[in-house]
């Protein structure tokens, strides 16, 4: 249950923050959720990791699909030196997931250190 709520909250808060603030506020979102909803550090990491992986992966896939992958074909060659939209989408998802995961991990440790 905590996992589901954390997962949804992290994704929603990240999306909401990014409407108005820089991309790295996803870290703040993941951090806050991890502080508010106590989970074991490993679980907190995984929750935010999956939430951001799905949010960023899903958003970029949705955008790219509507674009017939025109941009992803070109930009994947510029950034990744290979013509593969799906690898660019995967890279996007991983970047978001890693940042979210480590931020949540920090949040979880903070919460558990407070409890002591």
């Amino acid at each position, binding site marked *: 249950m905590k996992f589901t709520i954390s997962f949804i909250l992290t994704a929603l808060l990240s999306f909401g923050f990014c409407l108005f603030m820089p991309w790295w506020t996803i870290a703040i979102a993941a951090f806050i959720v991890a502080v508010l909803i106590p989970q074991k550090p490993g679980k907190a990491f995984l929750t935010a990791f999956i939430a951001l992986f799905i949010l960023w992966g899903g*958003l970029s896939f949705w955008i790219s699909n509507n*674009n017939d992958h025109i941009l992803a074909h070109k930009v994947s060659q510029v950034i990744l030196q290979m013509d593969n939209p799906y690898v660019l989408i995967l890279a996007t998802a991983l970047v978001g997931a890693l*940042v979210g995961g480590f931020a949540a991990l920090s949040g979880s440790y903070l919460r558990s250190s407070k409890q002591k």
Partner: protein
Amino acid sequence: MRIVPFIASAVISTGLIVALNTNLLLPAPLGKLLSPQHGVWQNAEPAATDYSANLKFDNLSGKVDVYLDDRLVPHIFAEQENDAYFVQGFLHAKFRLWQMELQVFAAGGRASEIVGEKALDHDREFRRLGMVFAAEIALQEMEKDPVIKSQCDAYTSGVNAFIETLTESSLPLEYKLIGYKPEKWSNLKTSLFLKYMSYDLAGGEDDFEMTNAKSFFNTEDFNKLFPALQDSLDPIIPKGTIFEPQKVFPVVPQIADSVYLNNRDVAFVQSSKPDRDNGSNNWAVSGSKTKSGAPILCNDPHLGLNLPSLWYEIQISVPAFNAYGVSFPGAPGVIIGYNDSCAFGFTNGGRDVRDYYEINFKDDNRQEYSFNGEWLKTKFRIDTIKIKGKPDFVDSVAYVKLGSDWCPVMYDKSFSGGRSTNNKYYAVRWKAHDASNELRIFNMLNHAKNYSDYSAAITNLHTPGQNCVFATKSGDIALRTQGEWPAKWKGQGDFVMPGTDSSFLWQGMIPQDEVPYQYNPERGFVSSANQKPVDDATYPYYLGRDYPEYRGFTINKRLIEMTAITPQDMMALQVDNFDAGAAMAKPFIVANMNEADLNAAEKKYFEILKSWNCRNDVGTTGATVFASFWKSFEETVYDDEYVNAPKHTMRPFFSSLLEEILKDSAYKFIDNVSTEQTETLADAVTTALKKATVELQKIDAAGNLNWDKNKATHINHLAKLAPFSRMNLPIGGGVRNINASKVDHGPSWRMVISLTAETEAYGVYPGGQSGNPGSKYYDSFVDDWAAGKYYSLWMMTKEQTGDKRILAKMSFSK
């Protein structure tokens, strides 16, 4: 205790964010770039984007409706004319902002700010040529004219209105990838853009290379290598035309022979140059030659091919006029196009209006220079060039007053194009430094109703001088070789000139009533293709040596023959791939080849050449063989003469070699001076084929013997990012073809306008309306352009707002 792991994970998170937000660890800020809500994904335009919008701006005085059609061409309907220019500026920025700014940064010598130190030489070159100096002078002139000033002001505020809407996520893709942000637009930037066109079209010269050739060859040889007149020239204004009596009499300086024409000094300067094939075709046929009885006007300007394209298609409809055509992102108005009464187009005049003078400074401080026996004071312009990631570079450029004109000392001890060992001072006198108001022409042409409006409009054109073609619905056709041209004596400005007294300066401009033109000529057409404008024998002023003549030769020949012409015939002519130069050369190549000396491989290519129809069509192999053969032939004939020539010595033109051989098969240079025996034309032709075979076998082995494969025409992205470019386009044509599609240069806009009661108009350019590589409209015209197809141009009317071609409506109001 969880404090240690907390600190550890907090440090990792922060480090991760810093790494992904900057270039410190990774080559690109991947987090910033890949964030779906901020980065590049935001530039992935949905295939079904709805461009409809309702926008309000205080700068507008009335209502403007813009209808975007299915090719994303905007049809602007404005109640107030200046509102239309505001919206044009807004749309240029919306679809082409990055390109607009990049062009202006390149023009003003600011490329180093974006790409770093590698652009420093370019920036110094452009600043030292006086690009900003010229743009400032032109801006003053433009702003003296209230009509043009308000037009530019409206345009600039439209561009800035768009820039103000930008957020991190809506920034154009290239800004995100390169990592910088757009500046505000200004009228000076529009002026700089126009000077960039002047550089491209009127910045060409070979003064240093010619100086070296002159110093190396004796006069007789020099004249054989660089003849002033081509036999096959069919000038723009036909031979036999009577000109106005001469009013300016340029005097050849008495010392010209000793210190100039026969001077043997070598000048080592090699600078970057505009493409020497910047050219174009235009023609208009009168109703007497067309099927409909109405004139047809055609134009295809040949320029460097880039993505985003130089051109942006547009319709501007205001109470005073209704015009359609292509515009320059960076400037207001329609540049090449038509309105409800007439059509207009341009080809480059191509005369030499950029000359160098050697300056004698008192000492290396450059504070004083000798002129007419006096020491005069220099002015300095201090340029601070910002360089990405490096300290600023400060360049001081001396300006000297030659006669009444301040000229930058472009080359000096600190700079000579980056490749020189020279320690002399050269000032540049460039016509583009003179005050003029080029936007006036387009403003007036957009409003033009008849021939006298056209004449009044284009006489404002000083630099870059253009052959301006014109036709009206009332049946007039005209072409004027317009420009403000220095009246030169024979040979003036071909070489670097002495700059120590006024005798070598330009002595005046050719009066406007002596500028050659044609108005409704008897032959029923006017045409230009950058060939020499007039016959030297009857025109009193010197026009220089180097003009491409073969496209003009073919066009005139065909137009003379054609009758009952349709727009479709004209489109076919624009994409014609016949090489008149090759057709003149082929007979002597075939007749002189020593076939007995050829091995099997050489025979194979000779057979291909023999059976070639002199057309550079897609799939032909003959054009590849001819190109390779001719290159070897030129080397065989001339290389021995050039062995000891100074670096950067001018090589003869294609036409020089061809025509000398057609006149004299015992052409002096055929003999190889490094051998004992005397080579004949047959020897040279055979040797050339043998040499070419080596290269052709390599081309063949790579599977590129077909002309289009060998040429591999491509359209580069302006930042040369390969994935944003279009490579290996299947298109024929070439340098001497009417379809002058070369490697990365060619017909940048093809247009055919039939001025029937309801105008029938066609056009295409190699690009797309959107400058966003993430849009399907980015390169949507390229394949059709390559295939020689045209779009029907739609002059929309206010009654057609329900037309199914309309994709979206944008409303602008106060």
